């Protein structure tokens, strides 16, 4: 914790045309910690993630990875740094099996031929390393898996590539109680294995169950980034909905807190953000 964060963002700005979605956002994600990124719909969470993963270029701001300044212009840049994103809609192919999905687009070869035994072995090791025991066979089609198992496969796919930072976009949104617990346990294990994890969630119970730090976005601004132990449930809700809570969050009027583009809070919910 005292060490430099694995990923540090400073002063990130992002606009879509006249609409400023992110203003002067700072975020730090530490190795071995789960950083929960919370915020209401339209607060800019998805845009921020897409800036980190290279899908949208940021208009301004600094990226520091392991203390070194880096530029991320494409998803490939992000992948090279070891940043993997698990999207909400999972991006798995139902008609392929678990191993095929985990290696999709990055298959191992021996010569021209796919090296199935090596891929299967690596997949098995990765799943074992995450203590996943819920899948019966690595060769079963993803269509036959439950929601929690699919999420597990998607996360394992992200971990497979010696990734250092895993970003999870609402991994428990569509899951039942037992499966949510399973996935949260897995998220915790990722951090315990030394990865930096950024967890986007709307569910305060999930956030408090696994996160070490909470970063709250409000209308495109990072209003607070604090340790989970230093904040209460209701304070987080206040930060999400009002942008301030006691001495945390925005100071002064939210309207003047912007960085001078004159865009009021009303138009900071653009179509570009989910």
């Amino acid at each position: 914790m005292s060490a430099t964060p694995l990923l540090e963002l400073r002063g990130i700005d992002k606009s879509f045309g006249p609409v400023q979605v992110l203003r002067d956002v700072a975020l730090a994600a530490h190795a071995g910690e789960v950083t929960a990124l919370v915020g209401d719909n339209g607060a800019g969470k998805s845009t921020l993630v897409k800036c980190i993963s290279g899908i949208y270029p940021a208009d301004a701001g600094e990226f520091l990875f392991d203390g070194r300044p880096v530029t991320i212009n494409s998803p490939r840049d992000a992948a090279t740094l070891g940043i993997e994103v698990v999207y909400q809609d999972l991006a798995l192919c139902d008609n392929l099996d678990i191993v095929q999905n985990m290696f999709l687009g990055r298959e191992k070869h021996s010569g021209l031929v796919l090296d199935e035994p090596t891929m299967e072995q690596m997949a098995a090791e990765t799943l074992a390393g995450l203590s996943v025991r819920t899948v019966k066979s690595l060769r079963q089609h993803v269509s036959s898996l439950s929601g929690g198992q699919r999420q597990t496969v998607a996360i394992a796919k992200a971990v497979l590539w010696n990734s250092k930072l895993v970003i999870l976009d609402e991994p428990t949104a569509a899951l039942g109680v037992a499966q949510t617990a399973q996935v949260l346990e897995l998220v915790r294990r990722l951090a315990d294995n030394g990865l930096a994890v950024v967890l986007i969630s709307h569910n305060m119970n999930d956030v408090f169950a696994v996160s070490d730090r909470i970063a709250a976005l409000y209308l495109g601004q990072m209003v607070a980034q604090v340790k989970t132990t230093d904040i209460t449930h209701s304070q987080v809700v206040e930060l999400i909905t009002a942008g301030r809570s006691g001495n945390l969050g925005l100071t002064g009027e939210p309207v003047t807190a912007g960085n001078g583009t004159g865009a009021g809070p009303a138009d900071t919910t653009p179509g570009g953000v989910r």
Partner: protein
Amino acid sequence: MTTTAVRKEGPAAVTPPPTVGSHLRGYWGRVRGGDIGALPAVLGLIVLCTVFSIMRPSFLTAGNFANLFTQGAAVTLIAMGLVFVLLLGEIDLSAGFASGVCAAILANVATKAGYPWYVAVLAAILTGVVIGTVLGFLVAKIGIPSFVVTLAGFLAFQGIVLMLISGGANISVNDEVLVAIANRNLPPAVGWALAALAIGGYAAVQLLRHRKRLSRGLTTDPMAVVLARIGGLTLILGIAVYILNQERSRNVLINSLKGVPIVVPVIAVLLIVWTFVLQRTSYGRHVYAVGGNKEAARRAGINVDKIRISVFVICSSMAAVGGIVAASRANSVDPNTGGSNVLLYAVGAAVIGGTSLFGGKGRVLDAVLGGAVVAVIDNGMGLMGYSAGVKYVVTGVVLLLAASVDALSRRRAAASGTR
């Protein structure tokens, strides 16, 4: 639904090594879950052959058996290419007349211009590649639905065939080699040698894979199942080659007619090549991925447009091969080559064999099994003296049946699989 999930997650800690019993149970489970694969085609083939053999003993002669292959070859070859397009959930309605165009090019180059057979074959296949590239470009880059693009192709290619053979006359194909493809047979000894080679190769691949997986400590199919597969292939190839090597000529003194028709190894080689491409290379994996979930494939860094264009190229090239075989069989090319029922028989063959119209599911072998079903229906009903009208109706009904099985099994798979 939740019970299945719980059941699957329960006894998962240690997977016992599979036995023959568990292997069969697993297969049966997949069938019941809606993943029926080529089962309907195989069962249909058995039922049809039994019925026709009883109704018309002449169905079960060596001569007719050989006819089945030459009759079904062109449709089967086109269907093999269509499998690739169907795997992406697209359709190519122009494949039939594309084969006609390629056949017309073949006849023009070989007969009218007098070039040797290999130049003609190359020209025909190149034509197929060009046609496929254009179709694929229009679908993938311009974004026109494949149904519309290939429907336009269907009409236009019909016209091109007419223009190429200048208004209705037909062009004969006389080149020895070209005629031999669909009309001559291999010497019996060569037939046996090729069969032995195929069995040996298959056994080697299966046993090597088994050993490699065992040595890595991965779960393998039980040895008995591996051996049963090899034995099954040996049995089928052995019987087929034995029957085809019988004398089929009515009068041996005039000319002897025996051996495996040359189209059979042609189909077999293409079957092996395309199966290898689909199952063992990244390209094949990516075709399945794009067919299963285009967005997931895109995020995995797969060039979706390139894959979409490539399947149309493969489809039209295979249509060219089908056209060559059709021209060879008829000894000529006329405006109807690749027309009438050819395309629908080919789509029917792929779907009857178990390739899904919804994309993501199918094998090249499906086209061969389905092609066999279509050929048997066509041949058997012809022997029974039914008119072409009845044949079309029956084939249409079989195609509808196959498509219903596809749709229903897909629904079943959705109900039993997802969540």
